[in-house]
């Protein structure tokens, strides 16, 4: 088929946003190359999802099997390997998500497809596939090309494409599942929800958020006092939770909470995409960071380049005066 294939990502009955982002990117590529855009949907009782998606691709290939009910990279890999051998797509797009990170590397290796991971853009010129990916925590863009191959693979970073409104008026093609035996080597057991904490950071009007730059838990009280004097809530980026300095329910980002306060003050947060994805909808973003190249300054409305250990205490003093 020499198609561009997008692997549909869904969980607990809902299609995930990355699917629409990949379809938009796939459509742009196909407009240029003349390839067909195919969405591949694996699952159990997901016919309604196929209906929802069919306008966004030339075709939706639907493969249903009880073993595909929940994501299992082993089951997905067997089905996709089979599909790729038969249909010979030109390019396969997956999300650079918990789902794609578990599946793409081993599948690409098995089907001998060059794989570029965590891409923020992909372009095709003739047989030449190029991608932009970020390294050093988002501080550098790297332009790579994939060695020519029959099939190539890309994992696309979430929120790197703005979803377009279009219709390709596609059809649904049902393909029978190639899974004949039970997959015993890897079994999905259950989902576990994060424990509900004492504080709901999603309800705050003002969030004061700290990151790696806070350096030591001893430096947290001064930020807490700053937050208290404003009636704001303290939140953080991942490294602070990893180090157990604040509980998980304070974490803003892909693996934590998505927040939209009126004002978000990011202190000592570099702005890795996993964090930005959780706070970029905030009304006003103020970032304090010593590195003028920190990615956070691309997303903030106001930036303060400097030493947070000088700025935060001064700001706290001034605020206590102003709002006393």
């Amino acid at each position, binding site marked *: 088929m020499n198609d561009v294939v997008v692997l549909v990502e869904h*969980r607990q009955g809902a299609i995930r946003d990355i699917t629409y982002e990949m379809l938009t990117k796939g459509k742009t590529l196909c407009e240029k190359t003349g390839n067909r855009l195919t969405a591949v949907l694996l699952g159990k009782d997901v016919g309604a999802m196929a209906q929802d998606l069919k306008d966004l691709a030339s075709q939706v290939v639907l493969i249903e099997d009880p073993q595909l009910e*929940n*994501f*299992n*990279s082993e089951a997905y890999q067997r089905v996709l390997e089979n599909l790729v051998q038969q249909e010979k797509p030109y390019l396969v797009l997956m999300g650079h998500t*918990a789902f794609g*990170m*578990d599946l*793409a*590397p*081993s599948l690409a290796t098995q089907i001998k497809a*060059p*794989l*570029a*991971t*965590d891409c923020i853009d992909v372009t095709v010129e003739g047989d030449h596939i*190029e*991608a932009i990916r970020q390294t*050093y*925590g988002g*501080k*550098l*863009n*790297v332009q790579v090309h994939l*060695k020519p191959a029959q099939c190539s693979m890309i994992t696309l970073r979430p929120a790197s494409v703005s979803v377009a409104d279009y219709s390709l008026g596609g059809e649904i093609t049902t393909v029978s599942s190639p899974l004949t035996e039970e997959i015993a*080597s*890897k079994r*999905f*057991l259950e989902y*576990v929800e*994060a424990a509900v904490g004492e504080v709901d950071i999603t309800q705050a*009007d*003002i969030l004061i958020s700290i990151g*790696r730059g806070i350096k030591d838990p001893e430096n947290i009280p001064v930020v807490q006092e700053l937050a208290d004097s*404003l009636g704001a809530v303290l939140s953080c980026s*991942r490294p602070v*939770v990893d*180090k157990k300095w604040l509980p998980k329910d304070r974490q803003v980002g*892909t*693996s*934590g909470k*998505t927040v939209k306060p*009126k*004002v978000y003050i990011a202190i000592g947060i*570099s702005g890795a995409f996993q964090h930005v994805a959780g706070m970029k909808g905030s009304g*006003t*973003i103020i970032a304090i960071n*010593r590195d003028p*190249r920190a990615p956070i300054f691309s997303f903030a409305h*106001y*930036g*303060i380049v*400097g030493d947070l250990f*000088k*700025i935060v205490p*001064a*700001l706290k*003093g*001034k605020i206590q005066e102003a*709002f006393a």
Partner: protein
Amino acid sequence: MEIIVCIKRVPETAEADIVIDKTGRDIEKGGLVFDINEWDNYAVEEAIILKEKYGGSVTVISMGPEGANETLRRALAMGADQAIRLTDPAFEGADGYAIARTLSQAIKPLCYDLILTGVQTEDDGYGQVGGTLAEMLGIGHAAVVSRIESIEDGRARVHRELEGGLEEVLDLELPAVLTIQSGINEPRYVSIMGIRKAAQREIRVLGFQDLAMKPEEAGEDGSLTIVERVSFPLVGEGAQILEGTVDEISDRVIAILKEKGGVA
């Protein structure tokens, strides 16, 4: 239980000024401070926790020049038993695929029940080596592991971190590769004395000839993605930078909080 941990020594760039080098394909590594990749530190700790619980031994493997010895010694000081360093001019310019190929050739002759890697590295951030390595070795894997609940009867019960605070629980046949997420444990402190003591321990060094590899499998020749050039991301609209004395900046922030945050 025999555990192998793949680790990498990386430059710390979170707060450093980075400069693009003359080739235009990488950054100047000169003045940068190097340390163990953060995710790998959690992986080493997890391996040692498992060894303490189930017995066995931990072998750490790193691909890199002589400086990587420091990272391997750090892991030995944490409690790893053996260290192997893979080094050869032929390995240079390797992408995630070629790194996995090199590691797989070194690991094939070894005895293992479990292989741990970090989810990704702080520098290249492929997030690819673990799954690729597993496929090359013909064993299973799980990526983004946030908890290893138990290991019993040749199977592991693990949690994978998904988006939005959700986790999935899996049951996995061993041997397998697990890519370890940051925050899974609290890596133990390593004293300077501990690292000095580890300086006496042997580090096995293996090169291209020792790994039975073909030239077209190693380094840039063995890579499937080729770096053309690097650049600094466009800042786009960017932030309006507040300048002045700390007091002046504070006054501006207060004005913004009053206007946008409804603080009175």
